[in-house]
C-alpha cells in the first residue's frame, strides 16, 4: 500500500512551522541521526528509524538518496518484538505447574504468579524475532505537504512524534474541514465553522 505499490493508500499532512534556510544540510544530519538501527542481534523490544523508500535495509542514504527534486522521500521502519498472549499464557501455566510439582505445593500465591509472568515474558521476548513494518512518506518542500502512506492510526501517531523528533516540525492531519479552510478568508472561515449538517432528502 506504499508509495511504490501498485495501489497506494495515503493521507495528507500539512507541515506546521518554517523550514530553516540551511534545510538540506540539517535534514541530511537529522535523517542520519534518526536512521533505523537494527535490533536483530540485541534484546531491545522496539526500534523506529528512517530507511530508504527503495530498500528497507538501506539506512545509509548514500548521496542523499532521500532527495527527489523538491521532495524528501523516506520510509519509517518499525521493528518490534512481540509475544503472542496465547504463547505467554502457555509458558506461564507450564512454569506454574513445574514449580508446584517441584515444591510439592497445591497453589501459588498471586505474587509468585506475577513473578513467573514477568520472567516468562522476558524470556520469550528475547527469543522473539523483531517483526518489521514500513510506512512511506513524501514531503513536498515547496508546498510543505507530507503524504503518508498508511491509514493506520497507531502508525500515524508514531509518525507525528517521530517527525517532530527528527525535524523539530509539527504535522497537522488534513481532513476535509481543515483543507476547506485553506480556500477561505477569515469571514468565510467563520461561516464554515457555523454550518450544520444538510438534509438532502
Amino acid at each position, binding site marked *: *500500500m506504499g*508509495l*511504490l505499490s*501498485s*495501489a*497506494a*493508500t*495515503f*493521507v*495528507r499532512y500539512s507541515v506546521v512551522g518554517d523550514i530553516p534556510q540551511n534545510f538540506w544540510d540539517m535534514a541530511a544530519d537529522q535523517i542520519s541521526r534518526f536512521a533505523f538501527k537494527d535490533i536483530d542481534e540485541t534484546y531491545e523490544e522496539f526500534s523506529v528509524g528512517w530507511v530508504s*523508500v*527503495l530498500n528497507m535495509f538501506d539506512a545509509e542514504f548514500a*548521496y542523499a*538518496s532521500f532527495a*527527489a*527534486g523538491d*521532495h524528501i*522521500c523516506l520510509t519509517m521502519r518499525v521493528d518490534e518484538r512481540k509475544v503472542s498472549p496465547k504463547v505467554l499464557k502457555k509458558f506461564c501455566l507450564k512454569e506454574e505447574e513445574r514449580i508446584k510439582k517441584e515444591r510439592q505445593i497445591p497453589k501459588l500465591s498471586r505474587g509468585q504468579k506475577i513473578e513467573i509472568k514477568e520472567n516468562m515474558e522476558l524470556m520469550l521476548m528475547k527469543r522473539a524475532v523483531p517483526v518489521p513494518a514500513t510506512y512511506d512518506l*513524501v514531503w*513536498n518542500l515547496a508546498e510543505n505537504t507530507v*503524504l503518508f502512506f498508511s*491509514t493506520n492510526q497507531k502508525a500515524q501517531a508514531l509518525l507525528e512524534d517521530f517527525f517532530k523528533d527528527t525535524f523539530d516540525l509539527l504535522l*497537522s*492531519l*488534513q*481532513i*476535509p*474541514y*481543515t*483543507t*476547506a479552510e*485553506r*480556500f*477561505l478568508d477569515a469571514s*468565510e472561515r467563520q*461561516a*464554515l465553522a457555523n*454550518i450544520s*449538517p*444538510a*438534509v*438532502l*432528502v
Partner: protein
Amino acid sequence: MDLVDLITEKRFIGQEFLTWLWYKSDERGGTVLLPEMEEDITLVFEKHMLLEFGEGDSHEKIVCQGLQAELKEARTGLRMGKKLEQARIHMIRGEYEWHMTIKASLMEFRSVKVPKTMDGADEGDDPEAVEGRLLDRIGLLETVYKTFDELLGQFIKIRISDQWPDEADKISTWIHKSDN
C-alpha cells in the same frame, strides 16, 4: 476546536462533498468542470460505495457494489438520509486515467492506481532514472489530491454561500429522480 473534535463533529463536510460530487458527475454524464483551469475531467463513481447513518450504537453502514448504472441501492440509501462515506472513483484527466477509493470523512485516498506514463525503454537502474520514476509517480499521486482539493474548494464556496439552498434543492431533486 482540536483535531479529534473536528474529525467527529465535522465529518459531515467530507460526506456532503462526496455526495455533491456524485451529483455533479452524474448531472453531466460523468464529466466535472475544474473551474481554475477551465478543464473538463471525467469522474465516474463505480463499483463500490459505502454509506453510513447515525452515531454510536445506532451507527449503520451499508455497502453497495455493482456497475455504475446499478448503484440503485446507494441512491435509495441517500433517500433514506444516509451519507456517502466511501466511493470508488475512476478519474480521467487529459490522456491519463486513475482509479481510487475516497474515504470522505477523513479524506483518505485508498488503493490509488496511477496511470503508466513511461514505456520500458525509460526504465533504467541508474540513480537519475530511479529519481525520475519516483518523481513521476509522486506527481501522479499529487494530481489526485490536488484535483480533489480544487473540487472541495469549489464545493465549500457554494456550501457556505447563499447559493447553497438552491444547490441542496437540486441535489435533493436528483436523489429523488432516481426513483423512476
